[in-house]
């Protein structure tokens, strides 16, 4: 990494030297270590359990999954569920998946487009109203669509954008903006001003400095912002529930709730779709594991 790389990491793992010290100097007794491993394994088991149940359910037949004497493990593996589930009558799942993807992708792009300049400018320059702006960002972070849904609903009815992807793209972008601004702001602030100044002395304009000098240095912050925003939009539920009424427009999170309380729910399909929806975002989240807390807690926990 470049010498000037920003080191804002909310959960910095212990440095290599510290880790070594723990194993050697501290000399944890073997018994204690085994106890920790057992506890660790139990924690792991509890946290993956619902998703293992989901996965096993997704390869059972409807008869197996609704059997009055169910088995924990699938006796046969019905992978064809992952094909058949897309044509279930309850809701147009392929369209729901497309909705989820389109809303998440465009909302994330919008967030990036809007928050990157804001984060850069507020980290680099003082101007009247800067504190007010950052305060607004923090307050926005604390607000969620759920509490404002009735207002959002009426507003988008008035704008004639009700039941459109555009409405959900705006809503998702607006409510996830703050995390992105905050985390990228802290990365920009971590670049020593000398770097910018040197570039400016060399005659580079502000935009050019931003794109050629700053952006490569804050790249980890941008990735964090993208992933976090994308996953939040992917899972959004409350606003979509009210704003999107046409079945085909709804994201998966809303569409799947239609299966609940039905006389004969095809749980195997619910779980197949859930696995498809969950696996990618879990992987994305794991990639930014170390920086997750920073943007959310506005840096107040280091």
């Amino acid at each position, binding site marked *: 990494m470049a010498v000037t790389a920003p080191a804002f990491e909310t959960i910095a793992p212990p440095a290599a030297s510290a880790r070594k010290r723990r194993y050697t100097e501290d000399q944890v007794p073997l018994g204690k*270590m085994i106890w920790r491993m057992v506890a660790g394994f139990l924690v792991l088991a509890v946290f993956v359990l619902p998703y293992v149940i989901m996965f096993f359910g997704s390869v059972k037949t409807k008869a197996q999954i609704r059997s009055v004497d169910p088995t924990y493990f699938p006796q046969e593996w019905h992978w064809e569920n992952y094909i058949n589930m897309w044509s279930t009558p309850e809701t147009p799942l392929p369209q729901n998946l497309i909705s989820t993807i389109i809303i998440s992708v465009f909302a994330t792009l919008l967030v990036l487009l809007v928050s990157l300049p804001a984060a850069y400018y507020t980290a680099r320059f003082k101007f009247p109203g800067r504190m007010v702006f950052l305060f607004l960002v923090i307050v926005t972070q604390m607000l969620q669509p759920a509490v404002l849904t009735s207002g959002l609903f009426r507003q988008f009815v008035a704008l004639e954008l009700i039941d459109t992807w555009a409405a959900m793209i705006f809503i998702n972008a607006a409510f996830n903006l703050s995390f992105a601004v905050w985390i990228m702001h802290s990365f920009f602030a971590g670049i020593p001003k000398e770097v910018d100044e040197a570039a400016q002395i060399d005659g580079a304009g502000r935009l050019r400095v931003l794109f050629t000098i700053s952006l490569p240095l804050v790249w980890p912050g941008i990735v964090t912002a993208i992933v976090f925003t994308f996953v939040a939009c992917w899972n959004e539920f409350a606003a979509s529930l009210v704003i999107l009424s046409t079945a085909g427009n709804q994201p998966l999170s809303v569409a799947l709730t239609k299966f609940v309380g039905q006389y004969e729910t095809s749980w195997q399909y619910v779980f197949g779709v859930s696995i498809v929806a969950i696996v990618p975002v879990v992987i994305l989240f794991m990639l930014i594991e170390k920086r997750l807390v920073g943007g959310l807690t506005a*840096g107040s926990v280091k």
Partner: protein
Amino acid sequence: MSTTSETSSIPAGAATGRPRPGGQGGQGNSRRPRPGGTAGEVKPRRGGRELLGALPWIGPALILIFGVVLFPAVVMFFNSTRDISISGLDKGSVGFDNYIEVFSFPYFWPIFGRTIVWVVVVVVATVLISLALAQLLNKAFPGRRIVRLAVIIPWAASVVMTTMVVYYGLEPYFGIINKFLVDIGLIATPEGYGWTRNPETAFAWSIVVAVFVSLPFTTYTILAGLQTMPGEVLEAAKMDGAGPVRTYWGVVLPQLRSAISVAVLINIINVFNSLPILKVMTGSIPGYDADTIMTMIFKYIQNQHKVDVASALSVVAFLIVIVIVAIYVRVVKPMKEV
């Protein structure tokens, strides 16, 4: 150096444990730059012209915040005093009639009380379990990395989908959790208790799910706090002959104060705003015996098509959230180094 304005209980220099690449030297620099931080010094600019210069950069963000967050709040306040027909027609002002309808609804106070129970029980249980989890994940052991990653899963996964697998698991006869409870002898018949049919048990299981999905964020926040703790402090406590329990209460917990207060406040907001868990677990139960303020708002909007009354209740909820946010800003002081 902005560390001079630091008021956090975590001592400066105790920061990361990871040396800052190219650290700019000098003490206090080992801590991570906070938002608005230190290294890239902010250039002072004054006057209205500077504000105009800033607008192209912060303008789009302002438009989104005002247009999609603050303006809907105004719309909501306005609608809460209007009479809006089922088809969405505004039939004029009714003063505070919608609020009267909200508060005179016979189930309102039970719902209000249940909301408090919901928030308090979920947040307290979450924080207590997270304290233990973070403690474990902060200790060195083989496989720790995998356990840490596993803890993230419910954070990334859709809450709706996580709740649905629990809902299925609790179904009579074929639900897998229900079967497990029968197999270990906790319940007598595979018919189960109708976990998701009775408002009380469905609500109790909703609390379990809410705690489960709140654990990752809370654990990670507390873990972040633990990792800022200087090893010397713990060693000093050890030298003074403090046992593990005493060290934890006397040294570790006080140091975690800021991490815990952030986690508590953000959790309060999240849990208060939470809709999907109760919507899935208790949504198909008739009546209002498992509702919180948030699910009630959505019942007004979706089932009764009373956007005006929903707005009134939303305003009540909004004011509660604003109070929590005000406490957050006072206690956590997120602006202190910007």
